[in-house]
């Protein structure tokens, strides 16, 4: 671990993992596995390519709700134009069919960002077109891949304001924009929009820097919309990036997690659900729980350091099967004070690692950042 990372890690630990501070005591995590009915529809309609009957793994997180309900999450579809890549399209089609087939239906869908791969109008419109078949209410937050070609212009035209809030059956939902406030790395270097997007679209790039953040203005907005909310009532916050620090070199964090924690500290039942990491993640930060979601496009490996200790890692995906290691989620808020997150991973009976050799974490890695993107003429 680099000295800088080590220093921040210690600080985060001191700030967020204070003795006795945890998410609400009544909460507990369990895990169960069962066959999901809706998958039968999905598999029947798209044919034998999907040879497995996937089972679901569930993380139960408790919360109070007025009435039980379910919502679905899809994110990180990273759509290319159809002419280049149909693989990612197929997976969105499958996820949409499966969400649409949920019975009882989901109350709404959250799309967690990275709809497009290179922010192109055609890619974003393709996404809208594919998601059109899903008739439930849809809410969108942006990912960095959606934003940095035209600085959110097309995204805004399609989806409106990137941050929003609504109440649903006793839960306050908040969508955050954690991508649009990146530092300007393009003006001085006179980059074209495509070059700017190229750096942003490279997870391990070194040029775009620490782009993930909530921003003072949005933090003030969040504080304001939470001011009238009972401190012990549930809040679910959606963000593209995790709201804590996992691995900054890949922007698996928001740079202002300290300030986020300050705003959320008084509230005892906060759940953050995020995309961007393309992997199963679980963490508790102060009084907040944080849950990382699968991509439909491809899985990222766990970072070489910083994986939260509370995370039960997902399996190491089979690179020969592009339906492995990816999928979508349902989130079930039920009357028994629980929020269940069900990971629907297409290639697997077991989402979570059962033994060491199934985990990418069983091979310790020492990695260094890339170098060619910072050299002339790049």
């Amino acid at each position, binding site marked *: 671990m680099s000295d800088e990372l080590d220093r921040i890690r210690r600080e985060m630990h001191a700030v967020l993992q204070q003795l006795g501070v945890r998410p609400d005591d009544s909460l507990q995590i369990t895990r169960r596995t069962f066959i999901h009915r809706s998958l039968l529809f999905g598999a029947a309609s798209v044919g034998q390519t999907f040879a497995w009957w996937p089972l679901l793994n569930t993380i139960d997180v408790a919360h109070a709700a007025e009435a039980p309900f379910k919502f679905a999450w899809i994110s990180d579809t990273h759509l*290319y134009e159809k002419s280049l890549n149909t693989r990612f399209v197929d997976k969105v089609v499958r996820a949409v069919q499966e969400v649409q087939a949920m019975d009882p239906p989901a109350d709404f869908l959250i799309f967690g960002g990275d709809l497009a791969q290179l922010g192109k109008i055609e890619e974003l419109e393709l996404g809208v077109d594919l998601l059109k078949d899903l008739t439930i209410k849809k809410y969108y937050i942006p990912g960095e891949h959606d934003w940095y070609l035209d600085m959110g212009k097309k995204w805004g035209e399609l989806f409106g304001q990137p941050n929003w809030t609504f109440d649903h059956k006793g839960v306050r939902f908040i969508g955050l924009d954690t991508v649009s406030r990146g530092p300007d790395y393009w003006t001085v270097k006179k980059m074209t929009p495509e070059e700017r997007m190229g750096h942003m679209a490279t997870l391990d790039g070194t040029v775009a820097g620490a782009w993930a953040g909530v921003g003072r203005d949005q933090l003030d907005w969040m504080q304001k919309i939470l001011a009238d909310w009972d401190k012990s009532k549930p809040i679910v916050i959606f963000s593209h990036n995790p709201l804590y620090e996992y691995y900054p070199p890949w922007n698996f964090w928001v740079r202002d997690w300290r300030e986020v924690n300050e705003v959320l500290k008084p509230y005892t039942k906060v759940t953050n659900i995020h995309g961007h990491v393309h992997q199963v993640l679980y963490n508790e930060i102060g009084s907040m729980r944080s849950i990382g979601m699968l991509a439909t496009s491809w899985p990222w490996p766990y970072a070489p350091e910083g994986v939260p200790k509370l995370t039960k890692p997902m399996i190491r995906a089979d690179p020969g099967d592009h339906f492995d290691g990816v999928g979508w989620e349902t989130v079930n808020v039920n009357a028994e004070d629980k929020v269940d997150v069900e990971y629907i991973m297409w290639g697997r009976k077991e989402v979570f690692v059962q033994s060491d050799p199934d985990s990418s974490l069983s091979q*310790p890695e020492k*990695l260094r950042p890339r170098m060619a993107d910072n050299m002339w003429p790049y």
Partner: protein
Amino acid sequence: MTIRATVLGTLCRPSFVVAIAAVAVFVGPTSAHKEPHTPEQLKLYEDVLMEEVRKGDLLFHGDAATAKQMNVVLSTTGMACAMCHPMASDTHPQSYPKFQVETSKFATLRDMINWCIEKPNQGEKIEIDSEAMKALEAYITWSNSGSVLVPGKH
């Protein structure tokens, strides 16, 4: 032979051409190991490595110009190696050679690179001792510097 090929491949980088030419003079077969190494020599060896790493980094991250220049098609799906392996993570060069589950064969890192090019990326397999292969190997191993050798580890 290798040195000459490298010189030709880097004509667009004049200062580097000079450096490589100097290597040829200092470490040509007739003078090898007869004199103590100078700091300049060591620097030049490092430069040769880093030039391979640079090319490998660009190929690994899907740089179209580099692929074209080296006459390789590593992917036709829009996917680049780095999209599943940021910072060459999860490539585990330290674990080779090993029994490769994907091919049911005892394999080297180069075999696996070709498998990834051909299968998930749907690109064109490259010659096992080609310049592009050496560059990719250089980048992957350089990125994983410091990892402990564990041949055969799954």
